[in-house]
């Protein structure tokens, strides 16, 4: 999954560097809130550990071998910020010292494996292991699933990056200038290997390591367990959780920025409606983006569009005339709906945990 130089266009590399820098900045800011002299050696040894674990050949069912990334165990022990930094440092050393992975694509590799991988691993581990005791078998299963999902999510993002190259970057004769395969080839090519082997390697190593830590050093699983810690344990948990107030401010800012969507020119790729196939202007856009006949809308699309009618079609309730206000209202509704669901899930899990500890 280490993308070498030359596979991605410079603009893709620049965009992914920007995404990675945002992730590094946020992670570094959070890490700086705690004792740096404690965090720096710990992240460094985890980076070195991830580097070495990537060299372990793990025998897999089917007679082949695979290797893990080490992102899941880093996210479980260090939390997402520590894992983002640790895996990024490991990838940087691989690129700058061993020439494994490109320099121009370092941002892309860090974005895919360190940022997307860490967030997916941490989120899924916390969700599945919510309420489970430190020595619970559920934590092992959670680590396995988190590892599998993290490796596949990273591969999926990389496949998207490969898939857009021939669509966006080709010369006048149609010669792809970078990775040559479109989505329908890049996606299965990347995902088959990861769904079967690479994801399994990360799952097995993560589960094995969590099972080992449950016996050898359970305190390391404490900081991201979501369970109450004593003052001493809290002091030992070197990566503090981020302030919820900042999270709320971030969500509010994103909601306020949603009307930017109405400034976009043209239609997002593959989000065409049957009506847009009928209009000549839209049809030209579709034809420029796809290699399919566009004289009429596809019959399957016509049939499926009647199955479900959205309450807010085109991101605006029917009674709202202003597109900007409609976008804002849709964002508020969407975010509110998701927050309500999340609060309900949290309350349910807390109640279950209280019942388990104090029946």
């Amino acid at each position, binding site marked *: 999954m280490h993308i070498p*130089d*030359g596979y991605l266009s410079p603009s893709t590399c620049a965009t992914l560097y920007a995404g990675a820098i945002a992730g590094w900045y946020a992670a570094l800011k959070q890490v700086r809130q705690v004792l740096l002299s404690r965090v720096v050696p710990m992240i460094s040894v985890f980076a070195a550990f991830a580097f070495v674990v990537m060299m372990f050949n793990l025998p897999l*069912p089917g007679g082949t071998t695979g290797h893990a990334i080490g992102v899941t165990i880093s996210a479980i022990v260090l939390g997402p910020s520590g894992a983002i930094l640790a895996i990024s440092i490991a990838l940087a050393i691989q*690129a*700058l*010292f061993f020439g494994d992975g490109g320099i121009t694509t370092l941002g892309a590799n860090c974005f895919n494996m360190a940022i997307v991988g860490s967030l997916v691993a941490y989120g899924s581990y916390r969700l599945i292991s919510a309420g489970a005791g430190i020595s619970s078998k559920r934590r092992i299963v959670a680590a396995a699933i988190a590892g599998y999902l993290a490796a596949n999510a990273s591969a999926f993002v990389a496949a998207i990056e490969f898939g857009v190259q021939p669509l966006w970057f080709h010369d006048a004769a149609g010669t792809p200038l970078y990775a040559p395969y479109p989505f329908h080839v890049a996606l299965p090519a990347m995902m088959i290997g990861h769904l079967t082997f690479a994801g399994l390697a990360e799952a097995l190593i993560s589960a094995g390591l969590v099972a080992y830590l449950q016996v050898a050093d359970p305190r390391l699983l404490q900081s991201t367990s979501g369970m109450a810690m004593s003052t001493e344990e809290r002091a030992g948990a070197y990566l503090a959780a981020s302030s919820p107030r900042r999270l709320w401010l971030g969500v509010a800012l994103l909601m306020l920025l949603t009307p930017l969507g109405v400034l976009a020119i043209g239609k997002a790729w593959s989000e065409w409606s049957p009506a847009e196939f009928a209009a000549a202007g839209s049809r030209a856009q579709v034809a420029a983006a796809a290699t399919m006949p566009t004289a009429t809308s596809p019959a399957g699309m016509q049939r499926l569009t009647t199955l479900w009618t959205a309450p807010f079609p085109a991101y605006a309730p029917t009674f709202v005339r202003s597109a900007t206000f409609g976008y804002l209202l849709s964002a508020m509704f969407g975010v509110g709906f998701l927050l309500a669901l999340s609060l309900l899930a949290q309350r349910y899990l807390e109640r279950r945990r209280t019942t388990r500890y104090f029946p």
Partner: protein
Amino acid sequence: MKRSGFIASTTVGFTRALSHALMSEEIARQRGLLQALDARVRVIGLFALVVAVTLSRRLAVVLALFVGAAILAVLSKVSLGTLAKRVWLVVLAFTGVIALPAMFVTPGDPIATFAGGLHITTQGLMTAALLIARVETAVTFTTVLILCTPWAHVLKALHSFRLPREVTTMLAMTHRYVFLLVETASQMFESRHSRTVGRLPRAEQRRMVARSAGVLLSKSIDLGNDVYLAMQARGFRGEVRILSDFSMKPRDYAGLLAFLCAGTLAIWMGR
């Protein structure tokens, strides 16, 4: 009797990493063109050339840059045999496998037709050649930089580019830990290899790898704690000071100018 191949192949991987580091230090100590330049010039210059390689849209320009990379390697005492064995053949095998089907599946003007309706298109041939040439050239530039620059100098150069000090510290510490852990893991695998008679069942092989990773994790964390205590004992409070004794000489400015001119020319000709 067949031995556990995965243990041997993992150990070979560790040995290769260690030998790469030794070779890098050896080449970096020699007197060559790149070694004579300031580390910041080397990092900026070769990064500019890698960017030029990715921006160039013409095969001829990318191939010219490849020749330039090979000349730079020779002038910097990096043998072409080493490059061919460690870089060119490896990249050709990896990227070649990826690029080969593109010759057949890329839509365009057919230039050769085979049985079963398969045909090679001009566009397919060009995209495969461009991908292989671009990856070979970029990896050659990167490898030449890595082999001719000691890691401490790369870190100092990165530090002078205003990279946060915590990051350069983590890069430096990780680099040290990597070799320590590679050596530890290598010894663990070698001792296991020497004790293994016959072939382990695959489930046992997996358990063995997971347990080895667990032991290595414990050792890593103990090491992290020891280093933290050692740093505290020496009065470390999170402030990192890096001795920066770089000074630009006229030849460094000339080198920087040459790199930037070559990069700009390649981008202009390859647009």
